[in-house]
C-alpha cells in the first residue's frame, strides 16, 4: 500500500517534456492575459521603431481579448489596491514647430547677493533630476552638498527616461509635483539626454531623430522645462552630456548639448554645465581612464556611457562649482 502510494506520488512529481511545455505555456498564457494592459503600456513605451510596432501589434489584440474575458479586472483592482492607478495622460507637449525666438539673451546670472544666503539651519534645497546618468553623479552631489554643510541635495532619477517619451515617464508633470511643495527646491540640477536621441511623437506625427522637425520639437521641450523650473524663481543647472566611447553616440550627445547650451543662454536663471571637457583626454578624445589627484582613475562604467564613482565625483564637483557662482557656499 505504502509502495503504491509512493509510486503514485512519483508519477505526480515527474512527467515528460510535453507536460513541461503544457504547464509553462498555460502559465505564460494566463500571466500574459492577466497582465495584458500593463504589457501593452510597456510595449507602447518602447523606443519608436520596428520593435515597438511589433510589440504593440502583438499586445493590442491580447489586451482586447483580456478585456473581453474580464481578465484585466484583477490587475486593475490590484493596481488600485497598491495605489498604482493608471498613469494620467502625458502632459500636453509644449507648442513645438517654431524655433523659439531668442526672447532675450541671458545676462549674467544674479549675483550671489541677490539670492538668500543658505545656512546650516536652512540649507539650500537642491533637487537632482534626470535619467540613469544622474544616478552616480547625483549620489556624489548629495554627498558633496552634505560636506558643504549649508546645502541639502535630494536625488530623483528615473531609468531610461528623458524628454522625448512623456508616455514612458512624464518629467514635466513630475517636476510640477516638486514645485508644488510648500518648500520647493531652490536649485535644480538637471541631467537629461542619454535616452533622448530617438524618435518622438509630436502633434505633426512621429519626428525621427536627426530631422529638423525633431530638433524643433526637442528644443521646445527643453525650453519648456527650463521655463517651468525657473518660473517660481528657482535656479537651474543644466548638465550637458559627456563624451561617450561610441563615436556615433557621442555625436548625438554633442548635438543635444548644443541645444541645451543655446537654450540655457535664452533662459535667465539657467546655467549650462558643460561636462564634455571633464571626460576627455589631452587630445580631446574619450578615455575611460583619466588623471586625478589619485593617479590614473577609471571614470566610466563598462558601457562607455555611464560614469564610475570617480567620474560622478568629478562631475558633481563641477556642478557644485556652478552652484557656487550663484549661491554663497563654502
Amino acid at each position, binding site marked *: 500500500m505504502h509502495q503504491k502510494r509512493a509510486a503514485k*506520488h512519483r508519477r*505526480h*512529481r*515527474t*512527467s*515528460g*517534456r*510535453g*507536460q*513541461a*511545455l*503544457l*504547464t*509553462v*505555456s*498555460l*502559465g*505564460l*498564457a*494566463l*500571466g*500574459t*492575459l*492577466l*497582465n495584458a494592459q*500593463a*504589457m501593452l503600456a*510597456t510595449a507602447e513605451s518602447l523606443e519608436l521603431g520596428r520593435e515597438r510596432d511589433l510589440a504593440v501589434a502583438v499586445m493590442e489584440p491580447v489586451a482586447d481579448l483580456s478585456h473581453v474575458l474580464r481578465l484585466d479586472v*484583477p*490587475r486593475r483592482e*490590484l*493596481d488600485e489596491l*497598491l495605489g*498604482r492607478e493608471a498613469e494620467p495622460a502625458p502632459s500636453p507637449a509644449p507648442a513645438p514647430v517654431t524655433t523659439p525666438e531668442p526672447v532675450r539673451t541671458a545676462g549674467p546670472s544674479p549675483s550671489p547677493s541677490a539670492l538668500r544666503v543658505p545656512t546650516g539651519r536652512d540649507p539650500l534645497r537642491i533637487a537632482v533630476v534626470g535619467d540613469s546618468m544622474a*544616478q*552616480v553623479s547625483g*549620489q*556624489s552631489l*548629495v*554627498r558633496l552638498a*552634505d*560636506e558643504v554643510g549649508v546645502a541639502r541635495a535630494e*536625488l530623483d532619477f528615473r*531609468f*531610461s527616461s528623458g524628454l522625448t517619451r512623456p508616455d514612458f515617464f512624464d518629467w514635466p508633470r513630475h517636476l510640477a509635483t516638486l514645485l508644488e511643495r510648500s518648500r520647493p527646491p531652490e536649485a535644480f540640477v538637471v541631467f537629461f539626454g542619454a535616452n533622448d536621441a530617438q524618435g518622438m511623437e509630436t502633434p505633426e506625427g512621429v519626428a525621427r531623430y536627426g530631422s529638423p522637425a525633431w530638433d524643433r520639437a526637442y528644443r521646445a521641450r527643453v525650453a519648456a522645462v527650463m521655463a517651468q523650473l525657473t518660473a517660481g524663481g528657482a535656479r537651474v543647472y543644466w548638465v550637458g552630456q559627456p563624451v561617450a*566611447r561610441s563615436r556615433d553616440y557621442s555625436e548625438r550627445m554633442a548635438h543635444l548639448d548644443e541645444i541645451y547650451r543655446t537654450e540655457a543662454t535664452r533662459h535667465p536663471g539657467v546655467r549650462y554645465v558643460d561636462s564634455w571637457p571633464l571626460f576627455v583626454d589631452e587630445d580631446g578624445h574619450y*578615455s*575611460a*581612464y583619466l588623471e586625478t589627484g*589619485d*593617479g*590614473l*582613475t*577609471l571614470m566610466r562604467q*563598462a558601457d*562607455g556611457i555611464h560614469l*564610475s*564613482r570617480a567620474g560622478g565625483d568629478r562631475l558633481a564637483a563641477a556642478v557644485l562649482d556652478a552652484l557656487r557662482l550663484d549661491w554663497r557656499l563654502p
Partner: protein
Amino acid sequence: MLFPTPAYAVLLLAVLLASWLLSSRPRAWRVMLLLAGAVFYGWFSPRLVLLLAVSAVANWAVAHGIARGHRRLLPLGVAANLAVLAWFKYYGFFVTSVADALTGLGIGLHPPLLEVVLPLGISFLTFQAISYLVEVRREITPPSSLLDVGVWLSFFPTVTAGPITRPSELLPQLPDGTRVRVPVGEGTWLLARGLAKKVVLASWLLTEVTDPVFGAPAVHSGPELLLGVYAYAALIYLDFSGYTDLARGSALLLGIRLPENFRAPYAATSVHDFWDRWHMTLSRWLRDFLFTPLAKRSRAHWWRSVAVPVLVMLLAGLWHGAAWTFVAFGAVHGVALAWERLRREHRRAAGRPRRDTVASRAVGRLVTFHVVCLGWVLFASESLQQAWVLLRGLGSGWGVSLDVPALLAPLLLAVLVAQLLPERATAWSRAAYRRSGPLLQGAALGVALLLLDALGPEGVAPFLYYRF
C-alpha cells in the same frame, strides 16, 4: 538576455517546444540547446558567442590531448584559461595599480590603458573549463565530443552566472534517446520563487535602500547605515539565489538537475559553515581545485591552518572583481576562516570539545552574520575609502529619527526568519503544488506572474552577479 523579461519567456517556450519535438533525437536536441545558448548569450553581444566557441573548441582539443597521455597539456590549458580571464578582468586593475605604486616611488609611468570590456560570465566560464580539464586528467570524466562540450559550456541557464557545474554532473544528464522524466512542479515552483526574489524583493531593496545608502553613506545616520548593510545582505542573497532558482528551474524543465547553490546561508553558525551554504558551487570549486591541492603542498601547521585559507579567500575575493575592495572582502573571510580553524585546533588540543547548545548556536549565528556583513560592506563599496566612511558612520547619529521605508524592517526580519525555519516547515506547500496537475500548476504560475508584475517595479536591473 535577462531571465525576468518577455524575451526570455519566449526563448524558454521555444526551447521547451523544441525539446518536446526532439525528445527522441538526442543529437538534434543537443544542437537545439547549443543554438539556444548562442541566442541567450549572444543577446548581450554577438561577439560573446565567438569567445564561447573558441573556449569550447580549445578546451575540447586540450582535453583530448590530455586523455591521449599528453598530461603536460593540463597546466598549459589551465594557464591559457586563466590568461584569458586575466586579460579581460584584471588588465586595467594591474596596470593602474603598478602605475600608482611607481608614482608613489617617484617614477612617472604612462602605461597603455586599453579599455578591455569584460565579457559577461567569463569568470564562471573559466572555472567550468578548468574543472573539465582537471576531471579529464583525473579520469573522472572521459573526454567528450565537441558538441557536448559546447552544450555544457553554453548551457543557457548557467552561462552567465552559474551555478558552476562539473562535466561529470551535467554531461551524463544530456538525453540519450530514452524518455526523460521532468520534475515540472519543482521546476515551475523554482521559477516562481526566483521571480519573486528578484523582481519584487531584490529590486525594491536595491532602489529604495541599498543604492541610496551605499551611494552616499556620509549623509546617513548610524542606524540608517546599519539597516542599509543588513538590507544589502538580504539583497545580495535574494538577487543571487533568485537568479539561481530561475537557472535551476529552467534546467529542470529540460530534465537537467543543476547543483544547489544556497542553503539558508544566514543560518550559518560559523564562517566556515557560511561558505558551505553560500554560493556552494564556487565553494566546492575552491575547495577541490585550490584549497586541497595547496594544503597538500606542506604539512606545516601555519601553512595549512593560516596561509592556505587566507590565500584561497584572497583569490576568491579577487575572482569577484578586480578591485582592492574585493581583496579586502576576501581578507576578512580568509582571516575569519583561519581564526576559526586555529580555535578549533586549540580546543581539540586542550581536550575541550565544541559546545553545541541553543545559546552557542545563537551567538555563533549572530557573530557570523556580522562578520559576513562586514564583508558585504567591502564587497558593495566602490572604494576602500567609501567602505571606511560607511563603517565609521555606523557609530554616529544614534538617537535621531530614522529615514527608511516602513516596510524595510519587516522584510529584513522575514528574510532572516525564513532562513532559520527548518526545510520541513514549508515542505507541505511545495509538495502540494508538485502533486497538482499541469492545469493547476499552469494556473498557479499565471496568477504568480500577475502578482509579480503588479508588485515589481518598472524594468528589471541586471543581476548583481552578472558583474563577475
